[in-house]
Each structure stands twice: as C-alpha cells, then as structure tokens.
C-alpha cells in the first residue's frame, strides 16, 4: 500500500467515528486530538478501526507514539510493509 492509500484509510476510519470532521482542514503535523473533538472512547475505536481495516496489530504500548496524523500514517506504513 502506498502512503496515500494508508492516509485514505486513516481518514475514512476517522470519518466513520467523527463524521463531522473536515479532513481537508487537518494539519498532518499537529496533534490530531487538538484539531478534532475525540474522547477516549472515540480514540480507542479509531485505533481499533485501523486494526480491523488494515489487519495491523497496534499494541497498547505504541498508542503514545500516535499523536499526529503523520505519526499514524508512518506507523501503519512501517507495519503494513
């Protein structure tokens, strides 16, 4: 999968949990949760959704590495390859 493909899956997953998010307005390098209103449960569902869609294991110990959109995409890219 290309980085663009992964980004599209990440944004689609985000939209399924928070349909109100305008994905074009997101900055990839700023903490995601500063830009969109996600509570702890939304955040867990987001990571769970990524796990389902991409068949990638995301151990809890790695959650703290996933802060910005770019972090999430890069992390998944490394795992998918």
């Amino acid at each position, binding site marked *: 999968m290309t980085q663009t493909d992964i980004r599209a899956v990440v944004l689609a997953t985000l*939209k*399924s949990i*928070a*349909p*109100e998010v305008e994905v074009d307005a997101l900055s990839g390098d700023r903490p995601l*949760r*500063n830009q969109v*209103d*996600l*509570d*702890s*449960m*939304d*955040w*867990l*569902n987001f990571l769970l959704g990524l796990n389902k869609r991409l068949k990638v294991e995301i151990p*809890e*110990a790695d*959650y*703290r590495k996933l*802060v910005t959109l770019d972090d999430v995409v890069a992390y998944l890219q490394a795992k998918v390859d």
Partner: protein
Amino acid sequence: MGSSSVIRKTADDLRAVPNWADYAAERSDFSWQAASRELANLPDGGFNIAHAAVDAHAAGRLSEKVALRFLALDAAAHDVSYGELARLSSRFANVLAQLGVAKGERVFVLAGRIPELYVAVLGSLKHGAVVSSLFSAFGPEPIATRVNLGACRVLVTTDRLYERKVAQWRDKMPTLEHVLLVREESGTAIPAGTLDLAALMDAASDTCTPAATTAEDMALLHFTSGTTGTPKGAVHVHGAAVAHYVTARYALDLHPDDIFWCTADPGWVTGTSYGIIAPLLHGVTSIIDREEFDAERWYGILQDEGVTVWYTAPTAIRMLMKAGAEIPRKYQFPNLRFIASVGEPLNPEAVRWGKEVLGLPIHDNWWQTETGGIMIANTAAFDIKPGSMGRPLPGIDAAIVKHNEDGTLTLIDTPDTEGELALKAGWPSMFRGYLNNAERYRKCFAGPGNAWYLTGDLAKRDADGYYWFVGRADDVIKSAGHLIGPFEVESALMEHPAVAEAGVIGKPDPVVGEIVKAFVSLKSGFTDSEELRRELLGHARKKLGAAVAPKEIAVLPTLPRTRSGKIMRRLLKARELGLPEGDLSTLEAGG
C-alpha cells in the same frame, strides 16, 4: 457479596497513620462547627475559599511549597508554588475588578487542564465572583445552554476552543460580555471581540484583598443533567470548603506531605472539589496532567512523580486493566499508599486488580454534584467490601428510604432492601439551589421538615452498614462517570431536518459503564441509510461534542410512546438489552 470477598485490613496495610481509625468514635465526636475552625477565616471573620486554600498558606511556611505541578507531553514539568498561586490569582481577581465584574457575577472557564484554568477559578473566588468550569469536550450547544442558564458575564477560554466552539455562536449568548483568551496558537491575531488574558494579567497588580464573602455566599456553579429539560445549575457556597477539607481528610486520607493526583477534569465536580480545592486546603502538592489518558503515561506519572494518594475513576481503571499486565511491570510504586475511585460503582475485579498490579486495593466512594463532596466511602483503616460504596463519613447521615405517593418518607431499616438513597440535609457542601429553578430544588427534599435530601440513586444498605448502588431512579445516563441527560441529546437530534422523534438511552459498556445510544424515527421523505446515520452522528457531535453525543444511532419506524405522548426510554432500553419489557399498560398502540 459473601464475607469471603471482603478485603480485610491489617496494620501492615497502612503506610501512614490513618486519619480515621475508630469508626464510631470519630462519627460521634465530629461536628462541622469544630471542623470549620481548622480553616483560615478572613481577617474580618468572613470566609473565602481562595483565601483559605491559597492566600493563608502563601502567607505562612508553605509559601515556597509546590501547590500545583503541571505535566505535559511536549514540555518540562511546570511548578506553581503556593506563593505564586496567590500572586497569580490576585492578578486575575484584579483583572475582573478592572472589567467591572461585581460580587456574585458569573465567570466561566472552558479550557483543558492548563494553569490559567486553576488561576481563573481561584482568582474568581478571591474576587467574590461565582465560577463555573465547563468540560472542554462539550460542543457549542451544551456550552451555550450553560452560559445562558448561568448568565455568564466573563468567559476564560483558549483561542483554539473559542474558534471551534464559541465564536460562531456568540450572538446566542446575550449575557456574555468579555472573553479572555489564552493564546495556544502563536502568531495568529487575537480574534475580534476577545481580550488577551496574558496581557491583562501582566498589567494587573499581584496583590489584592479577598472579597468579603461569607460562608453562605455563592461560590461555585456546577451543571448536572436531569431526565427532562435543560441541565441544572447546582449552586455551592464558599463554606462548602469545610466539607472539601474534611472529606479529603477522611475519605482520601490526605496527610500534609502527600503528593496527590486527582485525575478528574475540573469540567466536572470531582475535578473542582478534589482536583483544585481540597488538596490546596490541605497544603499538599497536586499533580495535574494536561494530556489525555494513556496507560503507559499514567503508570509513568505514578512512579516518577512519587504519587502517594491517587483519586481516579472506574473508566480509567478499566482502561488500565485492558492495557494488560505487561506495562505496569516496567514500573514501581513504592510511594503510593492510598487509591480511591469515584464516578460509578467499581466492579470487584477492578478493586482486586489494584492490589495485584499496584500493590493496593482501590477504595470506591460515592457522591454527586449536588452533595459537593464525598459522602459515603471505603476508607483507609477499614475493610473494603468490593463493589460497595462504603459507609457514611463523619458528619454525614445516610438512609435508605421509600418516597411515598403522598410525599412522606418511610425509612427502610431492614438490611439489603432496595430503596432511594437519602442524606440528612445540612452538611456544608450541600447544594443551595438549582439556578432559576426553586421548584426543582424543593422536590429534592422530603420527610419531616424536609430534612432529607433525595439523591435519585437507588441503593441498599447491608447489615454492616455498607451501601450498595443499585441504579438510577430516573433515565439519566452515566458514561465514563459523567451524567448525561437524554433530553439534551434528543433535542439536538430533533434539530436535524430528517428526524421526527428521538429517544436516547444508556447502553451498558464494559469500559465506560454506559454509552449513549440514540433511536430516531425519520420524517416522511427520508429513508434510512448508512449515509444518513452518519450524517446524524456528525450533526449530533458537532452540536453536543464528543463527550455528550451518541456513540450509536439506530433508526426505527416509530418510537414507543406512552398514551400521554412521552417516549418510553425504558422500553427502548429493555428491547436493546433483550430484557423483559415490564409493565406496558401505558404504551400507546403500535409502539
């Protein structure tokens, strides 16, 4: 609930001499009047929370002691001493004076756990204003509803939150005069109609004489949700601090040298009573983490900050349990000596998990927005009954009652019998009213002389005097320990053009207790589709914010209604859970 499950305490379990060791003697010797003498009065004899919690310590030997330690992901820890907190809160009080804010006028704070929030709350109290801290995950609609209900005159918030949740709705908040902004985005211009808080603070003097408030003057406003109608604004007075102080001594076992971490956000009552006021009254150091929950981060904080007393919530504990046993093995907690939890009943497995993983059992306690402070608790020196809320604290009399049709009360003395939990009115942090709603307040009290406060919680008391939560007497939803009023959610959904009717319930969830689930029926011309349900979800989230909006939406052809036209939430819930539907005699045909 056999005795085998009780966690017995022995002398080895106590890592400090407990503040409360003799249950009966302490309860019988206790008086609120005597307790109130332990806090500093104003020089003229009045009482002001900010004076007792901050200024009195700043003027004495605690001046250099760290009052608040702020932790953040991308910055070093930021310490604020008692002396500094006194100066900063004085500056804020002087800013309010300069803006012409009068005693009793309302200041609201909408922010994450940033230092300015704490300074604004304490500075407002010092100025004699009434302060309310709103949860920053609220959406524009819950914010506007509360601002208007509370006749908020000054709002302290951040540029980010202002832009996302306030700016476009400002014309719907007629009482809101001044918006004081904390700048989080560098380089952007300050929006029109707002003031730069940092600039105002810099220009203000760092000394001020606290307002001449009395113990009975209104100090804090906390919003809570009911089944029907708008949220209720519970009014608390300056004198509530005596209960904050006493309950932290008995239920949290606070000692002067403790490092205390209350994980609750000040947008909820726990985060104000025990995240701001109580630890300051005790002169201890509080840890405040600005970040969202993260299992590894939290274990790291407990270890690295040397937290001794930890007050957290069932949802957080269950999320830690879910994260597995590997992570905590990397950490050690030799300083931790007491753990308490509040928000919803803590399941027995979680109580015992604490003992296995952190080396200490978790002490559940019970209270609500209206009570202002902890009322019933499992405490340091006494056996824990896992799953129970514990026993009443000194100064608190509880009972299980039946509220009869004619308005009278019957006290239920038989152990293990379900009834409504009631508290003998008169403790200092008891709410003094619901804002603009005297009738609703009056209805909370019953019995001879209206001497009992009815909590709306159903409970049982066992033969040992421990109380057990059974459920809510109404349809209020409890998610992640916070009350959510179904009416507020239904109203927001009804504003969508496709929605004909909406019914909202709490659906049991293993982590957060209950999640908000909405059922809607559609107006003619609209058909159910994945796309429409998503649109409704987005609509609700935009208006209500993530903390209040439904997590699930289902579309039904019609919603069950009573003959009088009320949506039967209980039936929706019973159907969702596959439970017996109960008495349907009032159900309208076709529901």
